[in-house]
C-alpha cells in the first residue's frame, strides 16, 4: 500500500524523531512510504486566526502536492482535520472544492489509518510503563476518531494504560489561542497537568504533537517528571531497554 506522509510543519521543525518513528511503523506494517517534496504547512494557523485569503495559497499548494497520492497519512489529528476542512474553504471555487474533496477523502490520521485502513490493532510493540493518553480535540471531535489510539495501545506489551480524568477537555493549545489568550491557555494546561498527575502515569502519550508541545512545555517549566511521547514513538518501541532509551532520547532531544 502506498502512503504519502504528510509531515506537518511542527513535525519537521521540532519532532523529527516522531516522523522517523511514524515512517518506520508504517513500513513495518507493509506500507511503501514516500514524502512528497513540495509539501509545506497546511495553512491552519492563518485559517483559524481568520486570515482566509492567506490560507488559500498554502491549501491549493498542498492539494497539488498530494493530489496523486493513494493515501495521505499524518501523525497529527489536527493537521489531518485541516485537510478535511479544505472543501469548505473552497465553497466559492467549485473546481478546487472538488479537488479538495478528493484530498480530504484519502487523508488519514496515523492511528486511524493503521486501525481502520490497514485493519491492524497489534503492531507488535513493547513498552513497559504506566501510561495515560491525551485524546486531542481535533482527533475526537473534528475527525470523529475516538478509539484507534486506545486499541493500538491496548495491544502494546507491558503497557499499563490509565484513563485520564476529564480527557475530553482541551489542553489549552488551540494554535494561536495559546499566544493570543495566554492567561486562559495556561489555566487550561495547568488543569490538564493536575489530571495527568492524578493518574500517577510515568508517561503521557498523545497523537497530536501540538497538544504535547503545550502540555510538555508547561510540565517542563514546572519541573514535572512525567515523560511526554507521541504514540508513534510507543508503537515503534520493541523491548524494554530500547523503550527506555527511546523515551530518554526524545526527552533530551525535544521537549516531547
Amino acid at each position, binding site marked *: 500500500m502506498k502512503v504519502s506522509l504528510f509531515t506537518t*510543519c511542527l*513535525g*519537521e*521543525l*521540532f519532532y*523529527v524523531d516522531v516522523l*522517523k518513528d511514524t*515512517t518506520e511503523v508504517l*513500513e513495518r506494517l507493509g506500507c511503501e512510504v*514516500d*514524502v*512528497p*517534496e*513540495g509539501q*509545506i*504547512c497546511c495553512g491552519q*494557523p*492563518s*485559517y483559524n*486566526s*481568520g*486570515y482566509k485569503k*492567506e*490560507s488559500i*495559497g*498554502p491549501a491549493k*499548494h498542498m492539494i*497539488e*502536492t498530494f493530489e*496523486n497520492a493513494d493515501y495521505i497519512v499524518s501523525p497529527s489529528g489536527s493537521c489531518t482535520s485541516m485537510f478535511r476542512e479544505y472543501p469548505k474553504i473552497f465553497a466559492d471555487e467549485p473546481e478546487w472544492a472538488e479537488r479538495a474533496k478528493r484530498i480530504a477523502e484519502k487523508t488519514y490520521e496515523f492511528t486511524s489509518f493503521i486501525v481502520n485502513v490497514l485493519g491492524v490493532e497489534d503492531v507488535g510493540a513493547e513498552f513497559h510503563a504506566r501510561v495515560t493518553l491525551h485524546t486531542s*480535540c*481535533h482527533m475526537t*471531535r*473534528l475527525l470523529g476518531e475516538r478509539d484507534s489510539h486506545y486499541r493500538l495501545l491496548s495491544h502494546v506489551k507491558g503497557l499499563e494504560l490509565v484513563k485520564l480524568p*476529564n480527557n*475530553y477537555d*482541551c489542553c*489549552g*493549545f*488551540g*494554535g494561536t*489561542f495559546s*499566544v*493570543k*489568550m*495566554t*492567561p*486562559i491557555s495556561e*489555566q*487550561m494546561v495547568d*488543569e490538564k497537568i493536575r489530571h495527568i498527575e492524578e493518574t500517577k502515569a510515568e508517561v503521557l502519550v498523545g497523537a497530536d504533537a501540538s497538544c504535547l508541545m503545550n502540555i*510538555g*512545555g*508547561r510540565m*517542563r*517549566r514546572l519541573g514535572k517528571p512525567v515523560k511526554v511521547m507521541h504514540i508513534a514513538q510507543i508503537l515503534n518501541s520493541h523491548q524494554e531497554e530500547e523503550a527506555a532509551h527511546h523515551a530518554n532520547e526524545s526527552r533530551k*532531544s*525535544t*521537549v*516531547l
Partner: protein
Amino acid sequence: MPMKVGNLPFFEGVDKAISNTYMVNAVSSAQDGLREKKLKATVGDETLGDWEEWRRAGEEIRQFTLNHLDYYLKQLSDNFAARGGHVYFAQTVEEAQNYVRKIVRSKNAKNIVKSKSMVTEEISLNEALEAEGCDVLETDLAEFILQVDKDRPSHIVVPSVHKDRRKVREAFQKLGYSGSDEPKELAAFARKTLREKFLHADVGITGCNFAVADTGSICLVTNEGNANMVTSYPETQITVMGMERLVPSWKELDVLVTLLCRSSVGQRLTTYVTDITPADQTDTVDGPKDFHLVIVDAGRSRALGTEFQPALQCIRCAACLNVCPVYRHIGGHAYGSIYPGPIGAVLSPILGGYKEYGKLPYASSLCAACTEACPVRIPLHELLIKHRQKYVAGAGHPQTGEKIAMKAFGIGAKSPFLFKAGMKMAPIFLKPLVHDGSISKGPGPMKPWTHGRDLPAPSKENFREWFKKHQAEAGNPPTTVNADGSRSEAK
C-alpha cells in the same frame, strides 16, 4: 449599555476571573455535575432513542422556522391578537423599553414581578423600569439572589452558578436574614419574601422559551413555579421574546422542549412547562386580562440570510457553556456580555458589534466541545472562525504585526523553497536561545508562549535528509513529486 456586563477591558476581566479561585471552583464543579446529568438524559437514555437523530430534528426545525421567519411571525402575531392579546414588534432595544414603559405608565403600575428572562437582561429592562420609579422584582431564585447582591448573571440557565450557599447567605443578610446557609432555610426565606410581593404585583413580566405560531401561545420552561405566579396574579402581563424564538406548531414544540430540558439541566422534563394564551376567550378561565407580547429584533435580523444565521437556531440551553474549557476557567462575567460562553462569543458581536465584543471570538481554542454539545447543531466553532475573518477583514483592529506575519505566512507557506530553507535555518537561528534542549525565554511572537511554557529546540536533524538516506539504505530510490503532481525518482 444594554448587554454589557461590568466595565473592564477583556483581559482585565479575564485576570480578575482567574484570580477568583472561589468562582473558578464553583463553575468547574457545576460543569462536571451538569455534564454527567446531561449525558444520562441524552445519549445515556435508552428510552429516548438515538440522540443524534433528535439533534438533527432540532436543527431542521430551527432552520426551517428561520427560513420562514416572516411567515411564522405573522401567524403568531395574528393568532395572539385574535385571542385578544397585543403584539408589538420592537426593532431596537429603545423601542422595546419604550413600549414596556408605556404599558407600565398607562397602568400606573409600581410593583412589577419578573420571571427569569435573558432577553430582558439583554435590553436592560429592569434599569429602564426602575428609572420610572418602579419596584422590579426578580422571582427566579437565582436571579433574586443576584438582584439582592447587585450582581449580574454569569450563565444563561444557572445565572448564579458562580455563587455557593455561603455567598447566598451573605446576600440574604442584606435583607435581614439571620439564618444558616442550609439550602432549605435559604429557600424558605426567599419564598416568604417573594410571596408577599406576588400578592401586590401590578404587572408580570416574563421571557419566552418558545412561542407557538399556530395557536398564538407562549411556552415557559421552568423548575420553580415562579413564572406561573408571575403570569397568574397580576392583571397585566408582558412577555418579551427574541424574534427568533418561535415554532410553527406544538408538534415542533415537543421536540424542542425535549432537547432544551435534557441539554440544559439533564432533566427529562422540567417541573413546569407552562403554555399560556391571552385570556379573553371562551375556553380560558384564568390568566392575565391584558396580555402584551413584545417581539424584539435588536440586531437579530442582521444575521438573517447571512453566514451567521445558524446562531439564531439557539434555544438558550447553555449546553455549550457547560462543556466549554474557556468558560470553565474564566466564568461568565469575564466575557463582558450578558451572553457568555461559546454562544455568547458568537451572538454578542452580532447583536452588540465588533468594537465592544470583537475579542470574544478569539476566546476559544476551537476545541469544538460546544459544537458537539449543541442540541440544535449550531456549528459554533466554525462561526467563531467566521467572526475572526470579519474581524481581520476590517470589522475589528487586528495588530499590524499580526497582519504582516500572516501575509508573510501566506507567501512563505506556498513556497516549498522558503519552507525547506526555514526548516534548515531554524536550528541555527534559534541556537543561542536553546538551553538544555529547550527555549525558556523567547523573543517577539514566542514571548507569550514562553511566559509559562518551554519551547522545544528545533530538531537538529533534518527529516527529509534522513528520509533520503533511509530510502537509499533500504534500496529504494527516493521519489520526488513533480510540478504536475506526478512522481519520479529524485535526482
